[in-house]
C-alpha cells in the first residue's frame, strides 16, 4: 500500500512538472523563436494554449460539482 502511494505521488509530480515545462515552452519561449523554426512543428497553434486549459478547467469544475452533489445525496439518504 505504501509503495503504491509513493508511485502515485511520483507520477503526479512527474505529470505536473512535464505539463509545466511544456506549457512554459509553449507560452513563454515560443514567441521569441522565429516562425519557420523547426521547433514549431512540436507545438499546436497558439489558440490551443487557451482552449485546452479552459476546457480542462471546465471539465474539472463539472466533475467536482457532480462529485459533491453525489456525496451530498448519499449522506442525506443515510441520515433519513
Amino acid at each position, binding site marked *: 500500500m505504501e509503495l503504491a502511494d*509513493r508511485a502515485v*505521488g511520483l507520477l503526479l509530480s512527474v505529470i505536473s512538472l512535464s505539463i*509545466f515545462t511544456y506549457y512554459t515552452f509553449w*507560452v513563454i519561449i515560443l*514567441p521569441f523563436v522565429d516562425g519557420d523554426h523547426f521547433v514549431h512543428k512540436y507545438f499546436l497553434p497558439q489558440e490551443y*494554449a*487557451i482552449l485546452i486549459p479552459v476546457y480542462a478547467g471546465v471539465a474539472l469544475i463539472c466533475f467536482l460539482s457532480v462529485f459533491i452533489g453525489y456525496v451530498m445525496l448519499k449522506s442525506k439518504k443515510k441520515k433519513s
Partner: protein
Amino acid sequence: MKHIVKIMALLVVMSALWVSLLQTSKIPESYTLLLPLYFIVSLGCYGLLMVGVGLMQFPTCLHEAVLFATVCALLVLEDIVEAKEYLKQNGVDVGSNS
C-alpha cells in the same frame, strides 16, 4: 493576515507588469494575453506537484503499527481469559472453546 497582504502585493505587482506589457506591446498582443492563463496553469501545476511530493513523503510507521496491534491483541486475549475465569467462578456458563 500578513500572508494575504504578501499575496495581494504579488498579485498587484504582476498585474501592473502585465498591463505595462500590454501597453508597450513589445511582443505580440496575443501572446501577452496568455500570461494570466499561464499563471493559473503554473499555479495548478504547483498544487499538483505539492500533492505528489506530500504523497511521496507521507510519514507512515508500519512497524510501530504492527507492534501496537500485536500488543493490543495480547492485552485483549488476557482480558478475555480473565473474564472467563471470573464468570466460571460465579457459575456462569461461557462455553469452553479456546
